[in-house]
């Protein structure tokens, strides 16, 4: 039963053809986004690319412009509030779904997943129409509530994944030793679910930070999020400040993703 004629059927490793493919796909995934970095150091007033002269003026503009800075602050504020609200509501829902035995469970789960499935533009228009009547557009609360709805499916799924590998005997043990249900939840359930809760929180924050469609409708001259400011800087005015904003986002995202990898490698080597 010699299988020497199958070079790739080993436990590991990939052939040259596949290697080249992987490199090409990796380039397609990463390379296009990187053009914003040289663009951000341009000296020109236009989106001319590649730039002819270099300067830091768009970074200066980004950090000194009231419009850009307030959009960053708005986005961070809305993102954090959304993450807190969506995590609180989503963790409770995930636990509830996990412990509900009745037949409506699948329906409830689908309802919680629905915001992920309904086309973004439809959700945006629907919420805008309703918020117009409730006078919620252009308010921080409006942004947070709309983003919480969108972030909820991500929180519920993250926590549900943690719950899948969670044995509830420990709760029974805590209760039998005299812990109240609240103490049990705080001291036993929550710490064990922490990874799922944390990833749900991060997800909710990023979903809010990145959301453009609803934010486009809810914007007023007084309150805009960063993605909306970026959108307007391309469509309404040719404002290269967006290149500086994009480059900072790309840099921050990359650092945030690579840092845990590097730290883990350090630890595993030491």
């Amino acid at each position, binding site marked *: 039963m010699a*299988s020497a004629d199958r070079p790739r*059927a080993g436990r*590991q490793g*990939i052939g040259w053809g*596949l290697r080249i493919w*992987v490199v090409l*796909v*990796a380039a*397609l*995934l*990463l390379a*296009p*986004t*990187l053009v*914003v970095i040289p663009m951000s150091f341009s000296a020109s007033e236009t*989106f*001319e*690319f*590649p730039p002819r002269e270099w300067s830091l003026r768009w970074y200066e503009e980004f950090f000194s412009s009231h419009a850009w800075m307030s959009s960053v602050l708005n986005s961070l504020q809305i993102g954090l509030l959304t993450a807190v609200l969506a995590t609180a*509501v989503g963790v*409770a*829902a995930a636990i*509830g779904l996990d*412990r509900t*035995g009745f037949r409506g469970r699948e329906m409830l789960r689908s*309802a*919680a997943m*629905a*915001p992920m*499935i309904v*086309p*973004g*533009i*439809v959700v945006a*228009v*629907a*919420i805008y*129409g309703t918020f117009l009547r409730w006078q919620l557009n252009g308010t921080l609360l409006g942004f947070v*509530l709309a983003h*919480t709805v969108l972030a909820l499916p991500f929180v519920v*799924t*993250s926590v549900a*994944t943690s719950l899948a590998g969670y*044995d509830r005997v420990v*709760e*029974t043990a805590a209760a039998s030793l*005299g812990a109240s*249900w609240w103490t049990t939840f705080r001291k036993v359930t929550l710490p064990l679910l922490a990874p799922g809760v944390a990833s749900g929180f991060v997800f909710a924050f990023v979903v809010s930070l*990145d959301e*453009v469609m609803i934010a486009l409708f809810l914007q007023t001259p007084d309150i805009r999020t960063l*993605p909306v400011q*970026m959108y307007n800087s*391309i469509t309404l005015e040719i404002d290269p400040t967006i290149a500086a*904003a994009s480059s900072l*986002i*790309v840099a921050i*995202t*990359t650092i945030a*993703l690579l840092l845990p*990898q590097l730290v883990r490698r350090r630890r595993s080597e030491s």
Partner: protein
Amino acid sequence: MSSSTVATGTAGTASTGRGRRPRMVNWTLLPAAAVLLVFFFYPLATIVWRSITEPAFGLDNYTVLFTDGVSVTVLLRTLRTALIVALVALVIAYPYAYAMTRVSKRGRALLTVLVLLPFWTSVMARNFAWYLLEQRGGLIERFLAALGIDGVVLLGSVTGVTVAMVQVMLPFMVLPLYSGMSAIDRRLLDAATSLGASWRTAFAKVYFPLSLPGVVSGFSLVFIVTLGFFITPALLGTPQQSLVAQVIETRVSDLLDFPGAGAFGAVLLVVTLLVLFAVSRIARPTAALNQAVDRG
């Protein structure tokens, strides 16, 4: 609500203490149910309701939609674009996802980070990047000119929108694919080849069918998200080649025509649900994506 609540042995009670505190169950679901009902289902119901009651009760908004000669064209264009984007993304992502299951642990970490980076990077930043590449005098035009193909400006064309969408959606394809493939037991391939199947046959008859749930998940996820995508076509396309999302947006923000937008939105929603229903027998796209993300 004290701990002395007696376990009442509700449905699904196992010896693990399931069914304790049945009262807790009810209220933990309430906040989420309230948020979803008030800020999601109610607005959706309202806009659909308005599409059949304003200006008068009836299906006028829908008959207009199907007879105005433009909307159907836009809808078909959107479906075609979404289909092309999903197909191209699948062809590009399949070998990559396969490679992810075959490399060393360190290699897998690297390939995963490469997928997650664009996944986490701002959609606006990536669309702006494509704007720079596709504009007149941009890198793509110069590159093609260097190859002797002159005057190709992708900005403002369906092709330009499609190319950018594929790249923006690629992580959404790779993650469910990888999630599905990493669960495949490779010993089945060894079994097939030991019984005399060629590598190609083993792949076609064993591996590919087993990877189908991941394929269906990724494909339907990309297809659905692309159907409702607004940013990329709005930035890189033209009004003459509009997709559904742009038409809905224009109706609302320029004309405040909520009934008309609602009708178009309802049609888009029905198409989406049909796609989901068709694939629900095979896979659950959102679940697969989340599993993939959790692993990442």
